[in-house]
């Protein structure tokens, strides 16, 4: 019975992303960068006050923490990145023209993760996460939509 209800609820929510496009935007929340670990890409996990009425604090922290882990993976200094760097140096960096770098691969993973999070968690709550790369890796922009246009049709 629970499965049936969940499927019904989920099938209604799968159209949420399209509904959001026609909804009115109430405001935007910006999650800033956390520079306490240096210049690596990391976002603050502090829960913004504007989202308190909309979503679970733990869920938000989990999303941001996963994003931080993914960015750490992209910028990790290890055997693989050194190998890539040395190979690039030997080929006078022309290899960057033909090969996709490790960082770019992780960025694609991040884009996919954000889309997944939007579809499963944020759109049903009337929120939309914007991929930080579209804001120059400065902020995670969360758009808050008006409540009434979600699921009312």
């Amino acid at each position, binding site marked *: 019975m629970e499965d049936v209800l969940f499927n019904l609820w989920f099938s209604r929510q799968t159209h949420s992303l399209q509904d959001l*496009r026609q909804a009115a*935007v109430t405001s935007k929340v910006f999650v800033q960068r956390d*520079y306490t670990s240096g210049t690596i890409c990391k976002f603050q996990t502090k829960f913004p006050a504007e989202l308190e009425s909309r979503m679970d604090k733990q869920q938000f922290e989990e999303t941001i923490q996963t994003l931080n882990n993914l960015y750490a993976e992209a910028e990790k200094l290890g055997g693989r990145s050194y190998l890539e*760097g040395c190979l690039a140096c030997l080929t*006078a*960096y022309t290899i960057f023209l033909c090969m996709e770098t490790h960082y770019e691969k992780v960025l694609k993973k991040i884009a996919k993760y954000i889309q997944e999070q939007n579809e499963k968690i944020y759109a049903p709550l009337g929120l939309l996460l914007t991929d930080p790369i579209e804001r120059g890796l*400065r902020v995670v922009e969360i758009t808050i939509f008006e409540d009434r246009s979600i699921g009312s049709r």
Partner: protein
Amino acid sequence: MLDGRRAPRRMKNREYQQIDPQALATPPPRPPPEHMPKRARRKWEVFPGKNRFCCDGRIIVARQSGVLPLTLALIVLTSGLFFIFDCPFLVEHLTGCIPAIGGVLFVFVIISLLQTSFTDPGILPRATPEEAADIEKQIDNPTGLSSSYRPPPRTKEVVINQQVVKLKYCFTCKIFRPPRTSHCSLCDNCVERFDHHCPWVGNCVGKRNYRFFYTFIVSLSFLTAFIFGCATTHLALRSQGGNGLVVALQASPASALELVVCFFSVWSIVGLSGFHTYLVAANLTTNEDIKGSWSGKSGNEDVGNPYSYNSIIKNCCSVLCGPMPPSLIDRRGFVPSDDSVQTRPVEIELPAAKNDINMEKDCLDFALSCAG
């Protein structure tokens, strides 16, 4: 009139059906895309900084290319003279490796120079109007939101590796600059890990192209020294057979020219390479070194570079062989059309005008409406 009385409900229904959110979002004067194909603009076309773009946004250069043509001309001319006049003689009298080594060095120099000049150094895109308004909200401005004079510089402090670092607010880009980022006035952009603006290369040297710049100056040092050595050897060998130096110079005047160019450049280039090798080993930028940010010149004894890994090898590896970060300005992406979701008072689409005053006014108005 009767129709008019009944009509409102019908008309209302019809109007309600006719109102298309897409049409509401797009501004009235612009016709719908199906009727007039409007070319979607790429982001480089509306880029607010003072850069120029070529090949549909694939190549980026600073507005003033500085002396890049001179740099290229000097290198190509000197190397050309070397290959034409010195190589045949040296291949005959010494070894065939000489043009091969010269060739490899020359290729390295030219490729790394072009990459330094044409790569995005790590430009930070400017804040969107909503972001700027959000930041304005967070900063306490007790003197009121008058835009008649520039407010005092805003700073934010953050502790990195037990070191207090001040983040400054950039009035042009409307962001708090990340650590090690600086605003280049020549290019009018904030650049990450800003090293310096190099006129010889015609571009800023920053996070993304520092490794190319380093490769360029190191390989140029080797090339200059190599050509200098070969030209000297050439002249020495020619004047050996009892002919004297004057005869040798007459036989190969190009070598004399190469000697002069190389002699004057080798000191500065080798010196620069040495300096940058020190910077790489200490994980410093030219900007930080000149300002003395971490050397305790201001009298504070506790400063140390918080970004250094305290190991020369690790510093070198992280600066030169670290992962290549992506370009943040997405030059070839398309400017989003107005159908995307937008807040009511402010339009999201990037304004093509470089009118900072208007943008600041919009931000202030928006901030007022949020606060009020």
